[in-house]
């Protein structure tokens, strides 16, 4: 089979088709120049979705029931503690970043302990633990918005030839994670556990260790996302993580990763992130009211999942 005819069977292709379609519609309404600017903005904002979605993708790939709902709280807590500690001082950038990383490590470990030791299903464990993390964020700074050090803010919004630097960094990260998923022992173990946990165990894979590393990795990625997001948008806010809960799952699923687990790809994450940003921008550009916007967004997402989720007969 030639690569071209096999393309429609790639689960990630639909997200990209959707993204390009939205982009063409925006350009047909607003012109080529606007199209370029919108794409640059999409890359900026899509980057944050991708960081989080990479982690969620690994978790979802572990198989049915695996999903992490503590991510918004992790983003908020990481950003809040780091910004509060640095208090705008550029000399504290590195320790601030380390604080973010530790928040991720602690949350990932706690999540996994709840799942493993108390045998709580991941959805419930991560959701209930997220109240703990969110409350800690509220308690630590009462919602006061501390500005990031200027150098962090500048870095988060800087661009080379119209391409955000952060996007380039996350692109490199994506390639590394794709390699991890498809070429390393850890990645293949994640896929194997997702396909059949019992078989994976019998084959000698240490299932719980794989799960632990996966949840840990996700929390750390979310914490990093929080750190840069606070830099990008001028400070941490208590509700800054809110939209990443559903979006992290939507991006993974639209991107063609199997909800049933065991089958994942990173190419689709970028397509889906760009698609969602461009979709909302297109609907805003066309001036649809919020009600219609939500209906159209929902319908298109369902449509894409229906098409991309269909198992090919071959």
């Amino acid at each position, binding site marked *: 089979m030639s690569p071209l005819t096999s393309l429609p069977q790639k689960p990630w292709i639909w997200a990209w088709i959707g993204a390009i379609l939205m982009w063409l519609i*925006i350009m047909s*309404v*607003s012109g080529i*120049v*606007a*199209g*370029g*600017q*919108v794409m640059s*903005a*999409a890359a*900026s*904002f899509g980057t944050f979705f991708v960081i989080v979605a990479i982690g969620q993708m690994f978790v979802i790939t572990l198989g049915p029931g695996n999903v992490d709902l503590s991510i918004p709280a992790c983003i908020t807590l990481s950003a809040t503690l780091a910004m509060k500690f640095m208090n705008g001082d550029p000399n504290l950038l590195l320790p601030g970043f380390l604080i973010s990383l530790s928040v991720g490590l602690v949350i990932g470990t706690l999540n996994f302990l709840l799942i493993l030791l108390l045998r709580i299903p991941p959805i419930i464990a991560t959701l209930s633990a997220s*109240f703990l993390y*969110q409350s800690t964020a*509220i308690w630590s*700074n*009462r*919602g*006061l*918005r*501390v*500005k990031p050090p200027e150098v962090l803010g500048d870095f988060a*919004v800087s661009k080379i030839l119209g391409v955000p630097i952060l996007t380039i960094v996350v692109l490199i990260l994506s390639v590394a994670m794709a390699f991890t998923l498809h070429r390393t022992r850890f990645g293949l173990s994640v896929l194997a556990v997702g396909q059949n946990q019992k078989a994976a165990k019998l084959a000698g894979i240490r299932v719980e260790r794989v799960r632990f590393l996966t949840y840990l990795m996700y929390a750390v990625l979310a914490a990093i996302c929080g750190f840069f*997001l606070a830099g*990008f*948008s*001028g*400070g941490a*806010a*208590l*509700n*800054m993580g*809110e*939209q990443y809960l559903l979006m992290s799952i939507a991006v993974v699923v639209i991107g063609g990763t199997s909800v049933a687990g065991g089958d994942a790809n990173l190419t689709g994450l970028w397509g889906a992130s760009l698609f969602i*940003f*461009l979709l*909302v*921008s297109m609907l*805003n*550009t066309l*001036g649809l009211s*919020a*009600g219609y*916007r*939500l209906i159209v967004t929902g319908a298109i997402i369902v449509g894409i999942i229906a098409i991309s989720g269909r198992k090919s007969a071959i």
Partner: protein
Amino acid sequence: MKINTIGKLCILATVGSMATTSAIADTSGKRIALSNNYAGNSWRQAMLTSWDKVGSAAVADGVVAAADAFTTAENQVTEQAAQIQNLILQGYDAIVINAASPEGLNGAVKEACDAGVVVVSFDGIVTEPCAYRIAVDFKQMGKVQVEYLADRLSDGGNLLEIRGLAGVFVDDEISAGIHAGVEENAQFEIQGSVHGDWAQDVAQKAVAGILPSLPEIKAVVTQGGDGYGAAQAFKAAGRPTPIIVMGNRHDELTWWKEQKDASGYETMSVSIAPGVSTLAFWVAQQVLDGNSVPQDLTVPFLEITQDTLEESLANTQAGGVANVEYTLDDSIAVITGN
């Protein structure tokens, strides 16, 4: 030491009774609860802090016996209804509510009224007739922005509207006020409308997405908590900064001050002071005291102008939102003024 404390108490009591005459004697045994549906943003945090500050001072002064705050975890109507029922059972004399829904809590509010509990709703008000309402004229809050712009831009021009959270009463009201203002000032046209969810990062993202498709924008009308994000989006797009109406947040006021100092940038800022919770507290206290209070009160919103910017900024906690807390006398003025 002991004499000193008693002495202080006497002075407090004297001062208190001079200011409030009958209030202390009548409500000193009464307990007031705050039922709050959401605490997850800086405005709500400031609202709770103000409540705690004024409430605990009132308890210490013996004006009321308790002023406890309760916040639901999930911002859901059912959860808050159950919470109100619990507060009735716990024997509170008055319940002050910031409601998750204007209609959804009416059953629980009616139960409270029937049990003889005074119910005062504010910010997120309830429609149940037996409750007192401290409403903000959100429509007017939208309209003053356009009126200000009409003063500034006699030739009018294109506007970008940043709305709040879709489906929420407050968002519809402010937006209706903005649109009413634009209808009266035909020189303005709203070229685009996005939802910023009252959050800087969400507003920044939404504006960045629509901006390339828009013609020159003269001004941005907002709902609060979104002005700084809009400014960032204009900057990132390399566009000239329009007049962006701010929403009293510290980062917004700081940004405005920087622009003012650098280039004489002029705008206005408008929002509701989170301390409106303390007005609700005193209204509940006054009702318990047997004073006549109108069922519907309107609270003025807090407007910051070019001239009051420095003063407001200095009085606003870093990272917080401009605030006004009400004393008993302020509250009586609002009550009798209506």
